[in-house]
């Protein structure tokens, strides 16, 4: 990750000129922090954060609900008990037996097993129950009862510094008619402790959810970032010129692998295209430079001495011939380049292939009739209508026939056949000449490849390459095979794929 951070930050740094080295060093130091910031910006982290917030909120809400309802439950249980006690004591009070009431309170205070305490106060002034002794009591109850939670220290007479002073206590106060107030307290330390524990659990669980979501988000984010970084790194290497690099594809076959596969396919295509451009450049250098040199030398040598008009005329005619062959090569190269780039649109139409081949066959039949020892046979057995560039198909067939006529020794035979049906058909050009060795058949389809035995015949080594390019643009297959003896060139067309190309 560090290396990546430095590589992505070198370009601005290097712009800084003399300060470059320092700048790089500085960038290197802030590298990890930059990575962290990138990590926080990743979509994975962002999503994790959103989920974390949502889940935490949800769990906090659930747990809070549990907490509040538990608290209510505890309070209402305590309050119910307090109400029972209050009712009992008030009944005693209503019966008018104050001493009995006081006795009951005293007794209860002595027992005090449940952390409960009782007392009776006069006019809000706290008095010991004993002081009320002997007074007559009216029967009526004055006020409604109230329940509150207070600190023990506030309601009970405790020795100073008692640890119970801050214990929570549930207090039920009942105002009696003659200024007397009955107070019953119930210590709820245990319940409070339980509630506090629950509250801790609620906070803790929420915090844990948040924490784990964050860690999860960061982990996912950084794993995403790692894979993105690997893509970035490869892309940088490719941009700096190493086209052989490919993105790594794991066995997980996940969405990253899918993208990597697609990008790799794209890179293959780009590499192919660049390779073919490079090949063209090399070919131009080789196959145009040599005839140009020949042309130049021819003219230069002629100029060395004074010659007669006839020699000049001859040399100039030869020079024009050289130029023509250069132009021919050049045109063929352009056509092939254009075909390979798929740049032609106007001339695509539905054309009857049988008529097209018959027309060409007529031309070559005539040639064979004129030439001693050359036999031409045409076997046009179908007339499929095919969506194509008819100029290119005609040129491809013509190229194959030209080759066959050129390389077949006399007496020899050349045959043009169209076979198949409307869906799949084949154009076959065969001869009974020397043929092409199996190991050379792939090679001759490449640009400018000329076999040893044809070095001295005229030609530019582009004929079969052009045929191949024409076949490819029509989604057809060019195959060279043995005609036993001789060469058999078959172009196989299929209606379906031919149409696919056009609609694509």
């Amino acid at each position, binding site marked *: 990750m560090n290396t990546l951070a430095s590589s992505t930050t070198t370009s601005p740094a290097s712009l800084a000129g003399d300060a470059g080295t320092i700048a790089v060093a500085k960038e290197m130091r802030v590298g990890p922090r930059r990575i962290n910031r990138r990590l926080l910006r990743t979509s994975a982290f962002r999503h994790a954060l959103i989920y974390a917030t949502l889940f935490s909120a949800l769990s906090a809400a659930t747990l809070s609900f549990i907490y509040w309802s538990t608290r209510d439950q505890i309070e209402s249980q305590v309050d119910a008990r307090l109400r029972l006690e209050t009712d009992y004591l008030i009944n005693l009070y209503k019966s008018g037996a104050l001493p009995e009431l006081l006795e009951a309170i005293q007794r209860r205070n002595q027992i005090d097993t449940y952390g409960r305490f009782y007392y009776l106060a006069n006019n809000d002034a706290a008095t010991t129950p004993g002081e009320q002794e002997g007074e007559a009591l009216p029967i009526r109850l004055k006020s409604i009862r109230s329940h509150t939670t207070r600190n023990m220290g506030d309601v009970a007479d405790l020795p100073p510094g008692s640890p119970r002073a801050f214990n929570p206590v549930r207090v039920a106060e009942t105002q009696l008619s003659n200024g007397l107030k009955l107070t019953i307290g119930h210590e709820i330390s245990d319940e409070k402790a339980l509630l506090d524990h629950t509250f801790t659990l609620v906070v803790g669980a929420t915090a844990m959810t948040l924490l784990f979501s964050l860690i999860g988000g960061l982990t996912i984010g950084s794993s995403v970032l790692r894979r993105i970084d690997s893509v970035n790194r490869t892309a940088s290497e490719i941009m700096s010129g190493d086209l052989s690099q490919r993105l790594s594809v794991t066995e997980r076959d996940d969405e990253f692998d899918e993208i990597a596969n697609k990008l790799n396919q794209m890179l293959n295509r780009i590499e192919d295209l660049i390779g073919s451009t490079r090949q063209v450049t090399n070919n131009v250098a080789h196959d145009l430079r040599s005839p140009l040199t020949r042309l130049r030398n021819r003219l230069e040598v002629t100029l060395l001495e004074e010659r007669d008009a006839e020699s000049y005329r001859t040399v100039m005619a030869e020079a024009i011939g050289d130029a023509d062959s250069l132009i021919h090569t050049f045109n063929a190269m352009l056509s092939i380049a254009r075909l390979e780039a798929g*740049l*032609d649109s106007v001339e695509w139409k539905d054309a009857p292939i049988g008529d097209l081949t018959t027309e060409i066959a007529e031309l070559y039949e*005539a040639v064979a009739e004129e030439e001693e020892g050359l036999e031409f046979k045409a076997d046009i057995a179908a007339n499929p209508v095919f969506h194509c560039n008819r100029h290119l198909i005609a040129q491809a067939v013509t190229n194959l026939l030209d080759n066959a006529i050129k390389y077949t020794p006399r007496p020899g035979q050349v045959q043009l056949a169209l076979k198949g049906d409307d869906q799949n058909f084949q154009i076959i050009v065969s001869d009974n000449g020397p043929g092409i060795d199996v190991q050379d058949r792939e090679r001759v389809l490449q640009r400018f490849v000329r076999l040893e035995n044809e070095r001295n015949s005229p030609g530019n080594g582009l004929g079969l390459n052009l045929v191949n390019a024409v076949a490819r643009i029509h989604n057809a297959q060019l195959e060279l095979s043995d005609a036993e003896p001789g060469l058999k060139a078959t172009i196989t067309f299929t209606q379906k794929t031919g149409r696919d190309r056009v609609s694509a």
Partner: protein
Amino acid sequence: MRILLVEDDVEAAGYLVKGLTESGHVVEHAADGERGLQLAVGNAFDSMIIDRMLPKRDGLSLIEELRRMGNMTPVLILSALDDVDERVTGLKAGGDDYLTKPYQLSELTARLQALTRRAQTGVQGTVLHVGDLTLDLIRHKVTRSGRSINLQPREFRLLEYLMQHTGQVVTRSMLLENVWDYHFDPQTNVIDVQISRLRSKIDKDFDTPLLHTVRGAGYKLQEMNSPVEMT
């Protein structure tokens, strides 16, 4: 004939002017599209040679402008672009023929002749005559000295094209383009063979040959005792 040449490559234009002048033509040269337009508007020419890519005003726009102004002088477009699409665009813009650089001078003059002749004769009659050779376009009949000659459909079209350009040099490329609609040159001498077959049918049994080979250029259909038209 008077020819307007609009070509920005001055050296190439110089050779072309020299070649055309030596063949007996009068040539005016303009080095950019605007100048070309001025010359074309102010003078009457028999034909124009206009380069596809020109400074100031593009060749195609020049042709379109001339056609809009009602100038129907035949135009031969010269172009370094030999795309079929480019050719279609050029002809759509109002060009009459399209020639890709580099070209042979003989090819260029032959095409210019063909264009001018087409413009001069206008509507063709339905029966063509060269000497005692007649070709009936409606009845699809060819006769020489009253004798009927049997031609294949493609031979008929070949002869029709030659007769429409009687007295002019017709190149192999012109025949491939106009009779066969092929925009490429086969390596085999298919056109020579077709011509020799046609010749055996229309000339072999007669005293005076009509179909002649012009060395280094192409073919010419002409009655020899009529004055030879210079190209």
